């Protein structure tokens, strides 16, 4: 009688353990808390395991849209010091029936972000062996940022070149006008007076070395 009662009490967890250990539908989970959090790392204990089982139950609820999943549907075994273990999910209708692997995988992938956040970990530090992480989508730009910077720089340079060339052109034009203007005035004056002396007033004069004041070479 006592044996029968004892068997009744200990059978479910034993059966549960067997379901977990032998099944093909289980996933191995590995947490690297010290690596992920360093000094802020928390201790892995029964309460944390409770949280894990409840987040998984939450994930199954969201995926299947059934509010019947409870923490008893999540069975855990093969606990190690590493903080790694295997879990399986039992069906809500029949506790001996396991949810197939693909369903669990989909549920986990869908809610990985929430599960990570519950433990303050990331895809690197909370690993589900066999479930690849969903990486964030690459940012698509309308115009690539490098093109914008390129446009600014090449615009500035183009403006610089055009300004330089314009200044060269206008300088040449001014020089040409000056030369043309001077030669016109010369001819006019000569025609009027017949002397070329007054034209000297416009120009700076001609440097005649013979009358130089420079006595560099002849020292008397």
């Amino acid at each position, binding site marked *: 009688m006592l044996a029968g009662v004892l068997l009744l009490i200990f059978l479910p967890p034993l059966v549960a353990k067997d379901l977990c250990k032998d099944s093909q539908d289980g996933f191995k989970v590995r947490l*690297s808390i010290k690596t992920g959090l360093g000094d802020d790392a928390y201790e892995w204990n029964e309460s944390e395991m409770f949280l894990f089982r409840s987040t998984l139950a939450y994930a199954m609820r969201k995926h299947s849209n059934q509010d019947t999943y409870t923490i008893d549907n999540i069975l855990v075994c093969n606990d190690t010091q590493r903080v790694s273990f295997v879990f399986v999910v039992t069906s809500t209708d029949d506790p001996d029936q396991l949810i197939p692997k693909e369903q669990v995988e989909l549920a986990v992938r869908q809610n990985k972000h929430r599960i990570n956040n519950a433990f303050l970990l990331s895809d690197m530090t909370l690993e589900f062996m066999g479930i*690849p992480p*969903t*990486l*964030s989508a690459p940012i698509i730009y309308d115009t690539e940022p490098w093109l914008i910077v390129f446009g600014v720089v090449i615009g500035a340079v183009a403006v610089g070149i055009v300004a330089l060339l314009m200044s060269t052109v206008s300088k040449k034009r001014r020089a040409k006008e000056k030369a043309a203007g001077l030669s016109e005035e010369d001819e006019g004056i000569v025609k009027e007076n017949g002397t070329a002396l007054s034209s000297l007033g416009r120009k700076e004069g001609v440097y005649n070395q013979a009358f130089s004041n420079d006595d560099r070479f002849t020292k008397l």
Partner: protein
Amino acid sequence: LIMSKEARPSWDSPMQFVLACVSYAVGLGNVWRFPYLCQMHGGGGFLIPYLLMLFLEGIPLFCMELAIGQKMRLGSIGAWTAISPYLGGLGIASVVTSMYLCLYYNVINAWSFWYLFHSFQSVLPWAECPVNANRTGYLEECEVASPTQYFFYRETLNISSSIDENGGLHMGQALCLLLAWIIVYLFIVRGVKSTGMVVYFTATFPYVVLFIYLIRGVTLHGAWNGVKYMFTPKLEQLANPQTWINAATQIFFSLGLGFGSLIAFSSYNHHNNDFEKQAVVISLINSGTSVFASVVTFSIYGFKATFNYESCLERMRLLCLNAFDLSEESISAENVTAWISHLNITHPERFAAIASKIEHCSLEAELDTAVEGTGLAFIVYSEAIKNMPLSQLWSVLYFIMLLLLGMGSMLGNVTAIITPLADIKLLTRFLSSESINGLVCLLCLLLGFGFTSRSGSYWFTIFNEYAATLSLLFIVFIEVISVCYIYGLRRFERDIEDMLGHRPNWYWKVMWAVVSPLLLFSLFIFYIINYIQGGTPTYQAWDKDLVRSVKTFANNKLNQNEKNIKMKKLVKSSIIRILTM
């Protein structure tokens, strides 16, 4: 009095000339070639042959080119024709070599622009791999290589697997090359007037950045490992003749002799400019910058090597923890190696399962990986930068420095072409100097587009290794022989006395007449012997399937032969495997 209509333009001050020469001589080679040579040839000990060669050939040849330009007041073609009408070809050779250099050198500036523009993002594009199609992981090519290598070979170059496969033009590269040439044009459009303004910036700002990087570099974690590694002299390397040859060639190419740029720059000097003192100053600045840059490079090497070493230890630690399900505190980074041997002894079967993934982590091995050239500048440095805090800032600073170094050298290269052209009376009668300069830049741009194709990097390698190496040695050798023996050393001495007021002392005369020609001749012979003995030239090609650089023969037939041999081996081994199953 003859009032010449167009007096030869000149520098606003001797300082501009010195800065222009510094800007030209201090280029990318100081940053990416000298540290490599230092590492290869015994660290601090390499300074001995390097400084010796500086005094034996560097400074004398530099001074000689400045003297020629200042005396003749013409570009390279005109100057050599003035020395002897039969030597005009020497000037033409210089111009052609400068042309080759202009074509491929500006491509490096295009790459620097590409990297610079891509630094303006929240996450540097070479810091992370792009995600694959179904977002389960990263692209395979990037995963196997590294994000920095992937970014350089695939996104920057979109490199093909051999030089024969041309692919199309990379539009981004073509745009950057266009920008680079437009900026060069902007700098040289007014000749020495515009160049003189620009060199104040291009010569000095790189030193500011190098100094900032020095501070940043030596404060990085693990930087001291690299600097210690560099400065520990391995004097046995001095017995290796290759060390001396590399020191001689490095001095030679680093100073930019033989291109005609120095002659062009000094042709705009006043007749009495003291080029002798300036030559010594500029050469010493150039060598000093090389040493300074290598301290920065080695501190960054040390940081990168330490980072990789510590990542390796971390990977091994995780591997052991995961395979044996031990708690996280049991293995730390320090005792990983001890644990590995312990686990091998205690659990040999389980250890055998992970034995293939065990790597031997060694800081020495990481430091020993010497890299030079574009690989150093664009892969190694950018890998180090992505691990620094505030990486966008450091990236922008670094690539601006590379750009200034490259642009400064380009100024000299292009001036070496446009100065002789401006001396040709026939051309200047029909075209203004701005148009001539514009046409030169346009021609170089159009030809340079070839380097932006998918196989462009391989063409770059060819030009880098062959365009301006052997020919320069020959050119400078003929130069020094012509000046000493055809023009006459005495006549040259008198010209210098006329310009400076005193004759050159015995050091200059001995170097010009005896030592430098001998050195140059032996280098020239060495190069030819090396070339003949080299057989079919090979180059490093990026293999997309193996995801690393492989040695490829330049001759396609040999490639095909190798492939056939590999195929035969594969077939044989699979037949044997099937038969023995």
